[in-house]
């Protein structure tokens, strides 16, 4: 990560050496990784599970997995952030399944409306402790997601934050499965196009 604040809009970038140190069993490397991504991991967990104690358990589990399986991370195949958020999301869904609960995002979506949005995901002020690069990136991603047709955004959010499979989304929305698949791919394509510069800047 650059030492000086920058206006370049990129997610946090980790010194690759940190991963090498992590693989070699250097505990301080895990601390550095947590300092950079811990708040994001916790925020994601909070968006998916209702109880803050559960969110803590999710993040602790996720970082235990990160610590144990650092050697399976492949920098040529994806970003550290994608790796970490994938693990956090999986652990959150595991916890929800174990407790037979629905994802928080899904509860909210059901409780509030069918307008296509998942309230609460992007609400709230930005805290000061999130890095300037992460803030910039968050704004871009949020804007790009908001720019999608509501129906496309909805299936993306139900899948990612709600943990629903395509068939479950189809049932949930009373839409044909084919429609859900088409919307999902179209939404991902648009998002990829919109976030292209962000992804290139980071790699």
């Amino acid at each position, binding site marked *: 990560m650059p030492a000086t604040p920058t206006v370049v809009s990129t997610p946090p970038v980790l010194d690759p050496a940190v991963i090498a140190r992590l*693989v070699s069993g250097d505990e301080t490397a895990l601390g550095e990784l947590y300092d950079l991504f811990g708040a994001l991991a916790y925020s994601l967990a909070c968006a998916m599970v209702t109880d803050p104690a559960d969110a803590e358990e999710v993040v602790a589990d996720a970082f235990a997995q990160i610590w144990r399986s650092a050697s399976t991370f492949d920098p040529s195949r994806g970003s550290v952030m994608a790796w970490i958020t994938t693990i956090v999301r999986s652990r959150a869904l595991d916890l929800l399944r174990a407790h037979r609960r629905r994802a928080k995002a899904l509860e909210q979506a059901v409780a509030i409306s069918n307008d296509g949005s998942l309230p609460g995901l992007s609400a709230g002020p930005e805290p000061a402790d999130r890095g300037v690069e992460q803030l910039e990136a968050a704004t871009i991603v949020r804007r790009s997601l908001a720019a999608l047709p509501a129906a496309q955004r909805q299936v993306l959010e139900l899948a990612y934050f709600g943990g629903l499979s395509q068939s479950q989304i189809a049932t949930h929305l009373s839409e044909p499965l084919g429609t859900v698949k088409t919307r999902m791919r179209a939404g991902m394509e648009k998002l990829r196009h919109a976030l292209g510069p962000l992804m290139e800047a*980071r790699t």
Partner: protein
Amino acid sequence: VIPAERLDQAAAYALGAVDPSDIPGFEAELARSEELRREVDELRRVTGLMALTVAPQAPPPRLREQIMTNAHAAHPMAAVRSEPRPPGAVLRRRSSAWTVAPWILLAAALVGVVVMRGRVAQERDQRIALTQVTDSIRITLAARDSVLATLLAPDVETVKLVATGKPPSARMYWNRASNRVILAAFALPPAPSGRTYQLWGIAGANARPVSLGTFNTAANGEGRLTAAVPPGLSISVGAITEEPAGGSPQPTTQPFMVGQVKTAQ
């Protein structure tokens, strides 16, 4: 070019939304197609960025302490041998770590080999070595899942393909339910340079052979092919020919191994 259906699945896979019953099939395809893997990798970067849209929450300071305590009690995978998990570690789900144990040891060895080199070269080598190991694990596991799913089904046809002499031999398993075949060849020397072996499924006496895919064997004479059977093809005979690299639309040489499906319809 990736078929549209696979692109749909790739988007869903990056979102973790592929229906469970479709996952083995997709992952088997993923293991085969570097192009599809690249697509999924890129889509995963997109979903990784989606996490940035959640409302920020500050974690309690005790969470960091807990994570560091857990880490101190556990070992990273590269350092793990077969000892039981240390007490106090939070991980409750052990997943299937044992299946990758040899690769972990290999990873550890590869990492060990480069220790004496310069720091920059060392990190680069580690990354390359780990990339290779990870790719191997990913491909091996996906392929194994696919093989097991194909073999462990009630309605599987077994076809023994034999040559005129004794070796080589091959066995073809056709899972009618999932419409997939696995071919395992033995004692078959690798195809000459610029050539490949191609497996054909033939429906009946006058039917045109339908390609089920190409394969080659390793130096030890063993080779394996996992393939989807085109919908509607009821195989009564399996045959192997030698073809130009990349395979042929129709056989250009006489089959040197053939076998009949025992209970062909």
